[in-house]
């Protein structure tokens, strides 16, 4: 079994971190193969930023596939750019706070979460990616939520002050994701 995920959004929305947390957690907790592949343009900032995570029981070929099983979209331009890569039956996770376009496909599962708003509500715009991570993990259970949180905790260990906020954000996301699954 191989899962191909693409996470896409604005630079600054933490899409790379989201992908890295997930991939890292997989590495730490399973003996699955996992790759994380960031996609950079020439620009240091602006435009869309995206990354690919592949999780597999077999060896992984390309760390970026042509066809995605899962797609996390954090802004409008990314939706347009990547929606075509999502396989039929694939899962689409949307930051519904700012992605307002109608989704033209009816052959995919759609999970919406207003993560920008939720993050602002929680008092820090930056945690939107951790909320979305929660949503994704809650919905897919591709890796156990505790493991993922453990990884986040570990990566943030140098900034312990940020932990409670991030924990809350992650849990909020988990909740949304789990709810959507049912």
């Amino acid at each position, binding site marked *: 079994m191989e899962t191909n995920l693409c996470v896409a959004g604005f630079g600054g929305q933490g899409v790379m971190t989201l992908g890295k947390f997930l991939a890292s957690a997989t590495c730490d907790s399973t003996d699955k193969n996992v790759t994380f592949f960031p996609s950079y*343009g*020439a*620009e*240091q*900032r*602006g*435009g869309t930023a995206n990354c690919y995570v592949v999780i597999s029981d077999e060896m992984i070929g390309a760390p970026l596939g042509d066809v995605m099983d899962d797609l996390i979209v954090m802004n409008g331009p990314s939706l347009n750019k990547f929606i075509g890569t999502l396989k039929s039956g694939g899962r689409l996770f949307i930051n519904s706070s700012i992605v307002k376009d109608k989704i033209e496909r009816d052959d995919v599962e759609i999970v919406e979460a207003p993560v920008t708003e939720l993050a602002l509500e929680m008092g820090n715009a930056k945690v939107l990616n951790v909320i979305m991570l929660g949503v994704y993990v809650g919905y897919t259970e591709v890796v156990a939520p505790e493991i993922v949180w453990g990884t986040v905790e570990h990566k943030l260990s140098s900034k312990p002050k940020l932990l409670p906020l991030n924990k809350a954000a992650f849990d909020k996301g988990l909740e949304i994701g789990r709810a959507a699954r049912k």
Partner: protein
Amino acid sequence: MAELLYSRTKTIQEDKVSGFCPGCMHSTVMKLIGEVIDEMGIVDKTAAVLGIGCCGLQMDYMAYDNTTAPHGRACAVATGLKRANPDTIYYTYQGDGDLASIGLAETMSAANRGENFTVIFVNNGIYGMTGGQLAPTTLFGMKASTAPKGRIAEEHGYPMHVCETLNQLTAPQYLVRTSCNNPGNVLKTKQAIKKAFEYQIAGKGFSLVEIVTSCPTNWGLDSLKALDFLEENMLKEYPLGVIRDRG
């Protein structure tokens, strides 16, 4: 009827938005160059030789002739262009890594020969495009991705002063250091660029305009904090003013 007092120069492609980071003064400088060549009416006989660095983000943003030189070699490429085709106005546009690290020999040798073109040198104290590595102009106390403890005199030596060093050579005609940190300095930068182009048109020889700018992204500061840092630190190390003007 409303009269348009100020808008983006026509030397920038109408439908494009630049790829520079928020607050990056590369964007200001390339805008100013465009304004100057537009006002001087020379846009149809001007061509840019872009270095490699964030300056390259303008190649499909500007609207007139340009080429990209191999990293550091803009002054050599411009030498070839200008000597082969003296009627066109050529300028190079280079960052500090491009001009003062890998391209130091090309820059100094062209200056020493007194080549008749203009160098626009954007000094932001860091490697922008590649992500914040140490530049020859990096200040003490400024962290770089290849100098985790910042510049250390024993290891990296001291920030390099390009204008002052070139001032040791006989041939250069006009060496000036400006900034874009406020409206007044923006205007001065524009005037300096204009003057440099006038020197070239008059066949006088080598001119260089060093513009001290910020790189908010790689300084790890937001635009306004970077502006403060620029004023408090960069301008101290790199004082503005005319270093040489052969008139």
